[in-house]
């Protein structure tokens, strides 16, 4: 069975610092990987996705993630965060046409 583990429940950082949000997955078959962001009282917005091809994926708002098959990881990175990046971030995985399996989320708090 698939599972997604987000290794950090909370990540506090200062504005303009780099950040990495960690995600590991387990699956016996090929999966597709996603990162979503959720701002307070809003739905989920897609940041980026890995379906196939290049293992380095670039998304919106300056975020990127790297798919590492040997380590079964899909960590999210941003070289310089802003106050507006404060939100809940979810890593998710699925197989084609199936529902997403989500991690428990990581709260990113950016302070000045």
């Amino acid at each position, binding site marked *: 069975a698939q599972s997604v583990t987000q290794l950090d429940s909370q990540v506090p950082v200062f504005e303009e610092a780099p950040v990495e949000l960690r995600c590991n997955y387990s699956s016996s078959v090929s999966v597709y990987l996603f990162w979503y962001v959720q701002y307070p009282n809003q739905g989920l917005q897609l940041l980026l996705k890995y379906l196939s091809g290049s293992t380095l994926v670039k998304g919106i708002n300056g975020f990127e993630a790297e798919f590492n098959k040997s380590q079964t990881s899909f960590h999210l990175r941003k070289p310089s965060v802003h106050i507006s990046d404060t939100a809940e971030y979810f890593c998710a995985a699925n197989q*084609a046409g199936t529902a997403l399996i989500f991690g428990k989320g990581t709260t990113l708090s950016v302070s000045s």
Partner: protein
Amino acid sequence: EAGVAQSPRYKIIEKRQSVAFWCNPISGHATLYWYQQILGQGPKLLIQFQNNGVVDDSQLPKDRFSAERLKGVDSTLKIQPAKLEDSAVYLCASSHRLAGERDTQYFGPGTRLTVL
């Protein structure tokens, strides 16, 4: 392109009452999902539709939850009777390609349900 629409945005009910949520997916999206997001957790699938047929409802508590997608477009999710543990955000998502192909799910704003 309009996104996934959901209503109401907020709902407060007493336990044992019934409640219904509505979702209008992105135009042309064949697949529709309902997820339940309990506070502090990631969303979990309740039911997946392909056009107006059910693909996966294995995690839907069928003794109290029901869902339908008439004409393969709008969908409603109902809870009857509600329990305290049903307090959560109910998210609707849709995707373009038919099940079995690669796709990306787009989410609505959600309905926050509070059961007192």
